[in-house]
């Protein structure tokens, strides 16, 4: 059994205000193996985004620990990429300048790295728009530009915080398929947060189900779909899809 890439052990986190304490995470434990695509579903407001912030290190857990087993020991650049709900492309920069923002900040805007960014823009159909302003892109293209910005730092683990929730349904299906394919082709490990069960089943290898606040991991369900080709759209037509959907639905709702 290889070491998992990421281990979360008994993570607890609470928000504090003068009115009192609001526990958000309680004994959250799980692990993610290298190359896995894991989805996390849970009721809205259950602390999913808090969990991602804790994993990334933006918030410090009150107890418990996050262990990241990186092969890379240089330890210079962040090895975790974090994609936020909205693309947050900066309007005063061109699409290309946005894509290299992370490289610029971490002082790694080298010819190799920037040519990798340009290659990605080429591959994902953004090259033509590289000198345009973000406002000229469609919602799906913006999301792809945001992904390139994250991938430019070459992270080992990608944290995706409902990256499709701001898109309309049709765009959402296409963009999620798109992004998922990019992540798989790059052999990245990913942790996706969503509240959309079909999205979780069609994209992920494994689904973690979180409970209400204070949240904890209640179920860990591996997904095996019989597929001819591995696209999220095909996955929605797999014979097992309905079974998993019902399983997840019951797991989500049987909370007493």
């Amino acid at each position, binding site marked *: 059994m290889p070491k998992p890439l990421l281990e979360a052990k008994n993570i607890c986190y609470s928000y504090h205000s003068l009115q009192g304490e609001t526990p958000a995470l309680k004994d959250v434990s799980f692990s993610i193996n290298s190359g896995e695509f894991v989805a996390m579903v849970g009721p809205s407001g259950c602390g999913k985004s808090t969990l991602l912030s804790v994993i*990334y290190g*933006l918030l410090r857990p009150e107890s418990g620990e996050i262990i990241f087993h990186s092969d890379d020991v240089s330890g210079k*650049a*962040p090895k975790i*990429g*974090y*994609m*936020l709900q*909205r693309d*947050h492309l*900066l*309007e*005063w920069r061109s699409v290309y300048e946005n894509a290299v*923002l*992370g490289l*610029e*900040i*971490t002082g790694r805007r080298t010819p190799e790295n920037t040519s990798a960014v340009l290659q990605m823009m080429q591959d994902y159909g953004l090259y033509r728009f590289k000198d345009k*302003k973000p406002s000229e892109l469609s919602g799906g293209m913006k999301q792809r530009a945001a992904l390139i*910005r*994250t991938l430019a*730092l070459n992270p080992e683990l990608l944290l995706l915080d409902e990256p499709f929730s701001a898109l309309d349904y049709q765009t959402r299906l296409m963009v999620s398929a798109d992004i998922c394919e990019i992540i798989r082709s790059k052999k990245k490990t990913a942790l996706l947060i969503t509240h959309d069960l079909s999205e979780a089943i069609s994209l992920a290898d494994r689904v973690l189900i979180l409970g209400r606040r204070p949240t904890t991991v209640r179920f860990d369900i591996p997904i095996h779909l019989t597929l001819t080709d591995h696209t999220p759209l095909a996955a929605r037509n797999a014979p097992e899809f309905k079974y998993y959907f019902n399983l997840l639905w019951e797991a989500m709702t049987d909370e007493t």
Partner: protein
Amino acid sequence: MKPEAARTQHSAQEAYVKEHKRYHNKITLCRLAIFLLFLAVWELAADLKWIDAFFFSSPSRVLTCLVELVTEKNLFLHIGITLYETIISFLLVFFFGMLTATLLWYSEGISEILEPYLVVLNSLPKSALAPLFIVWLGTGSLTIVVAGISVAVFGSIISLYTGFKSVDAEKITLIYTLGGSKKDAFTKVVLPASIPTVLSTMKVNIGLALVGVIIGEFLAARRGLGYLIIYSSQVFQMHMVITAIILLCLIAMGLYLSIGYAEHFYKKKTGIK
């Protein structure tokens, strides 16, 4: 599309542009008409002795006075001094305003500690301070520049800081998720996002700096338009007072427009509305 259809659409667009131009010409015309009417009524009222020209002057007397000022009283020196002092005050306000607002943005604690002081200093009528400045700093350009700064700087700090604070917090989180520090968040997101706020604050400040400089010149100067106004009112030369006020109007307009052009240029360059 049929040729006729194309032509109708084309002419509809032309009509729209024409209408638009006509509207704007009308606006300009009306503005000019008000100005000329005002001058005419003023001149007539003075000539027909409806008003006493000794107190209220008249356009023709203002013009004569202007020529006199240029030839005998070194008017351009006075204008130059006032402009110079205003621009120095404005630049220092810009510098201290940006510096302090940045510091406050960096430290939540400092900004909370200083908030009541800023509010009090901002609402204090700065003309009340001018006599103090004279005693402390003497009568010279330094006093006048300090007076100019004092009028504009506190409001400028408050609006710049508010502008910095109103930048989307998630965009700052984005910088952290890309491995950036607080400094990166400031230089990559807060500062560029605040440029419109900075420009509009500066537009207000250049006017306020002029106000401060004139207050300073009233009390502690031998040169400058403020001095000219006070001096000529003391010797009951109302033509000269009014001439100087009109010149001040023009200077204020010119300064405002120059920042306005900078703003316009920036918007055009970045394409941000």
